């Protein structure tokens, strides 16, 4: 396979097309705009449709309409736009529609800035919109992972009938790296017999979830809850780095995960047995990565581009057994590996 040098955002777009994504609806926003731009050029070549919507609200609802007819569809945005998509995400989750939504996170709150952040962690993983639901959330740390996870996202969406979010940040979206495109998967996926395609030769379908009684409402919610529990053990992904003999572990995803890998190497040079767990699925949170490690480790540190959001999930897994510390950067700033090591040593008294 030949390698190509590609920007993260374009790699996501190309991977989507190669996964059979036929429609893209979006509204431009930095630093994710290369995704709609690429789609507007390339989707046509494969007989697909690109449409620039009047807003992110419209875009996510166009995604909803297209997905309801059983076709692979994607939208992409950055944090303020992702906020606007939350109502639509709740509706997608409620009627169990597969779709891929990309959030190339930028600094908030409010208009914030264009710099990278991971501060959408809460709104992406904890539902964000109203009601009890979780999209599957995939967090790449390299451009190659942006390709691989985008392709996987379409399969996961169809397999579990759920929206899947790719959570990256402005650095990953803009960075160029060599990538290769694996063949699209040939996974046996369920037939979309629920889709609205015209009621020819079959009963009509309703793709909706309006509940006129609380009893039906409860039944629907229990169904979704069961589905979440089914997904949880099955799709956890993570990368462990030098954790076998680790006495301390950093937990970090995406860009901060990448920087933390260097921090681990720096600390090891000083004789500190530091390791890294890099969650790739943010929901479900990769609890399995901590299995068998909790007894050997003296402490964890969550490193994030936020004031500390994923740390809440780390604490739930660690469950008070050892201290969980935090180091973060905000507002578009990223830490140097040295800063991470310095903070780590200070917080664990290793100076």
């Amino acid at each position, binding site marked *: 396979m030949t390698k190509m040098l590609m920007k993260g955002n374009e790699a996501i777009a190309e991977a989507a097309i190669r996964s059979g994504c036929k429609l893209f609806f979006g509204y431009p926003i930095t630093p994710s705009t290369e995704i709609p731009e690429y789609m507007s050029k390339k989707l046509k070549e494969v007989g697909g449709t690109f449409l620039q919507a009047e807003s992110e609200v*419209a875009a996510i609802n166009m995604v909803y309409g297209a997905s309801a007819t059983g076709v692979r569809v994607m939208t992409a945005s950055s944090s303020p736009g992702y906020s606007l998509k939350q109502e639509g995400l709740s509706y997608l989750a409620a009627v169990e529609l597969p779709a891929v939504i990309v959030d190339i996170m930028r600094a908030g709150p409010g208009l914030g800035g264009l710099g990278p952040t991971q501060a959408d962690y809460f709104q992406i993983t904890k539902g964000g919109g109203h009601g009890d639901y979780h999209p599957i959330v995939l967090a790449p740390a390299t451009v190659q992972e942006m390709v691989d996870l985008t392709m996987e996202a379409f399969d996961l969406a169809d397999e579990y009938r759920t929206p899947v979010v790719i959570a990256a940040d402005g650095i990953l979206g803009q960075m160029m790296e060599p990538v290769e495109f694996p063949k699209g998967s040939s996974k046996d996926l369920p037939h979309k017999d629920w889709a609205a395609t015209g009621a020819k030769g079959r009963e009509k379908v309703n793709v909706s979830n309006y509940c006129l009684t609380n009893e039906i409402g409860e039944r629907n919610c229990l169904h979704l809850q069961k589905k979440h529990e089914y997904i949880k053990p099955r799709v956890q992904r993570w990368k462990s780095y030098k954790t076998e003999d680790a006495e301390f572990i950093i937990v970090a995803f995406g860009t901060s995960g990448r920087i933390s890998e260097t921090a681990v190497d720096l600390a090891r040079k000083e004789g500190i047995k530091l390791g890294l767990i890099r969650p790739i699925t943010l929901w479900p949170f990769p609890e399995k990565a901590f299995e068998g490690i909790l007894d050997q480790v003296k402490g964890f540190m969550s490193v994030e581009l936020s004031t500390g959001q994923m740390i809440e999930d780390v604490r739930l897994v660690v469950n008070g057994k050892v201290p969980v510390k935090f180091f973060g950067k905000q507002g578009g700033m990223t830490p140097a590996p040295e800063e991470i090591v310095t903070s780590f040593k200070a917080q664990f008294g290793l100076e």
Partner: protein
Amino acid sequence: MKKVFGRTKGLTERAFHYCPGCTHGIIHRILAEALEELDLIENAIGVAPVGCAGFCEVYFSCDMIGAAHGRAIAVGTGAKRARPENTVFTYQGDGDAGAIGLAETISAAARGENITSIFVNNSIYGMTGGQMAPTTLPGQKTSTSPFGRDPEVAGHPIDLPLLLSHVEGSAYIASVSVDTPKNVLAAKKALKKGFQTQMEGKGFSFISILSTCPTNWGMSPAKAIKWLQDNMQTHFTMGELKVKE
């Protein structure tokens, strides 16, 4: 004996939940008849709104998608772009398409989106119990304009079909009413024309239908029809407002 009238196949067997005298029911029937007569029951994909008609997905015999409040036209756009071979329609209230979803409505018209949107204007928010709508008339009392809509404070009602008829990209815009048998027939004709516009690929079609809400207007069904004739038909532009050849 010759059967001269029967239930259209465009409707399921489900009994309507609409209030007595509410003209949503008439509109459902003529829309369903239009689907049947144009042989669209097995082809159409309808989009239900949030509003009193939020449950219409169980009444129409075609495939249906339930949208969020105001987003039916965006949902319909997604469905149509994914499956251009299907005839796609939305059924929306005045709040749905004229307030919270106004951007979607105007943008779809401007794009010449090849879908048909049915706009049920009852000058009030029926579903939520009678609040002011974007089409509430000056002086009209609602639960959020208890002293009558004061344009100085609450602004003016919007004449959506008139506005859309000025948007390049809209192909068929009609403003009709279901207050008399004659007008019911004319409304059905407009619905069919809307669907035909779409089937011929001409662009966005929008049929505004004046409708009553006896419950929230606080009137008997007969009084409500009279109020619609005296107040709504005189305020809103009526007739075919745009017919693209």
